[in-house]
């Protein structure tokens, strides 16, 4: 390893981003952690001070009441489970839709491939918010989807599509589809076509070739895409707010309500920490996958 920069250079290059992230990401996160153990107060800010003084010694104030509250009130437990379910189903649908698309793009001729990738990515460069908004108009009772269903005679009255689980699934799949397709495509594109030719030469039929060769080789891509969709989907706020149910909230919305409506910052923090705990395993998995991809031999 050549000495890339001299000592001050190295300190600067590594130090600046580290300091920024520590100050504006790590420390805030620690504050959330600490606040989750605090009690709520009707004050500004609406929480008890971090440090209590007992017999003249500073002691960090740790109350587990917030967490107890989360586990006892069924609203929260239900929200967590609901969020996990919605995220899981959305991820599965996204995978089912995205995999064939990525496969088709990877198999296309090079000229087509760039054009197709651009077509897939173009919506991503417009606004997330506006793309989800589009579905409001489509899924309304007098929206395009109902129009089509009525015109085709599949239903006789408009179907309630908005504010359902179905709408949330569609919203998440629609918004996160590029995140599923890209890692899948990156993986599939690297597959050596000679492997499939060898399999064909040895007598395997198309579907079997896919099952035994392509699918196993694409597992890292599947894992990456699935995690890239699942993890943010659990904490999704915009999609359920615009398209989702009003009787059952996802956990992102619960956190926001707890914070802005109830002004209960400690409980909101506890909600956040629990959410993170739920996601710790998938996050670590994704980090491991990405590290392996970045350091893999070419």
């Amino acid at each position, binding site marked *: 390893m050549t000495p890339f920069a001299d000592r001050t250079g190295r300190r600067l290059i590594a130090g600046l981003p580290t300091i920024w992230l520590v100050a504006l990401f790590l420390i805030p996160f620690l504050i959330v952690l600490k606040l989750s153990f605090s009690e709520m107060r009707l004050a500004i800010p609406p929480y008890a001070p971090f440090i209590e003084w007992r017999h003249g010694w500073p002691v960090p104030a740790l109350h587990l009441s917030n967490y107890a509250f989360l586990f006892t009130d069924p609203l929260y437990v239900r929200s967590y489970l609901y969020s996990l379910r919605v995220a899981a189903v959305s991820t599965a649908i996204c995978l089912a839709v995205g995999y064939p698309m990525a496969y088709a793009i990877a198999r296309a001729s090079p000229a087509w491939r760039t054009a197709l990738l651009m077509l897939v990515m173009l919506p991503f460069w417009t606004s997330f*918010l*506006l793309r989800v908004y589009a579905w409001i108009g489509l899924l309304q009772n007098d929206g395009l989807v109902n129009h089509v269903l009525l015109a085709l005679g599949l239903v006789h009255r408009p179907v309630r599509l908005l504010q359902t689980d179905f709408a949330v699934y569609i919203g998440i799949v629609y918004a996160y589809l590029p995140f599923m397709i890209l890692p899948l495509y990156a993986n599939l594109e690297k597959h050596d076509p000679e492997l499939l030719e060898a399999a064909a030469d040895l007598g395997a039929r198309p579907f079997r070739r896919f099952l035994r060769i392509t699918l196993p080789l694409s597992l890292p891509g599947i894992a990456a895409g699935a995690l890239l969709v699942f993890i943010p989907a659990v904490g999704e706020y*915009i999609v359920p707010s615009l398209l989702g149910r009003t009787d059952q909230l996802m956990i992102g919305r619960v956190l926001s309500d707890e914070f802005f409506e109830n002004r209960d910052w400690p409980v909101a923090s506890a909600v956040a920490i629990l959410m993170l705990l739920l996601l710790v395993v998938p996050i670590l998995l994704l980090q491991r996958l990405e590290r392996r991809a970045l350091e893999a031999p070419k």
Partner: protein
Amino acid sequence: MNAAGRFPRTMLAIGLAFLYVPIASLIVYSFNNSRLVTVWDAAHSPTLKWYWALLSDDQIVRAAWLSIRIALLAATAASVLGTLGGVALARLGPFRGRALLAGLVPAPIVMPEVITGLALLLLFVALEEAIGWPRGVGVVTIALAHITFCMAYVAVVVQSRFAGFDESLEEAAMDLGARPATVFMRITLPLIAPAVAAGWLLSFTLSWDDLVITQFVAGPGSSTLPMVIFSKVRLGVSPDVNALATLLVLAVAIGIGATAVLLRYRERRRVRDVQLAAADS
């Protein structure tokens, strides 16, 4: 010739349709005279009245201007910080604190936005308690928040550009007498410039479009465009938002089209250059 079977190709067609029908519907109904976005008023449409409404809506115009300004600032600052971070992780080898930086950089990307937003607001509140700054949330806090999560994306993009990077180029520069700072400015930076540019664009888009984090760290006086749109559309469809969406799609399509043309031109020139070299060697 597409070597994929019929099923994948069909799914690709369906998928692309799925991706573009909503966008198309947004565009079409922005020209619809009726406020009921879903009923085509054939008698009076197409019309540009919603575009005029959009452009004369003070709240929206001000919010758009604020969003663009914040995005420009955030993208530029995030590009600098993110490039430094990406370079540090990819080229500095092991150093004290590397594990910390390596763990922090991808974190804003995977962390759910509600948590990041909450955390940042709590930081600003605690800071105000402790040292009196920042005085209330507003543009400054929004910018700081945006820079934070954007730099993570830039760092990842820059870091991955270094995979497959020819280290011998930097060594050759050093061998020829260039000190490390010169090597970085004249060799490394020009070579990763496309990745930095991509990171800048990505940051701009992410900052401009951000809603969740911004809602946490914005104050009453500073509404960004996504915030304004969100409060409008919570109540239902709104055709001037359709108009906005159409303008945006147009801008993005032009941008992508221009990039594609540029890349195609570059590629053709490169092929010609290689042929030129082979011809007279």
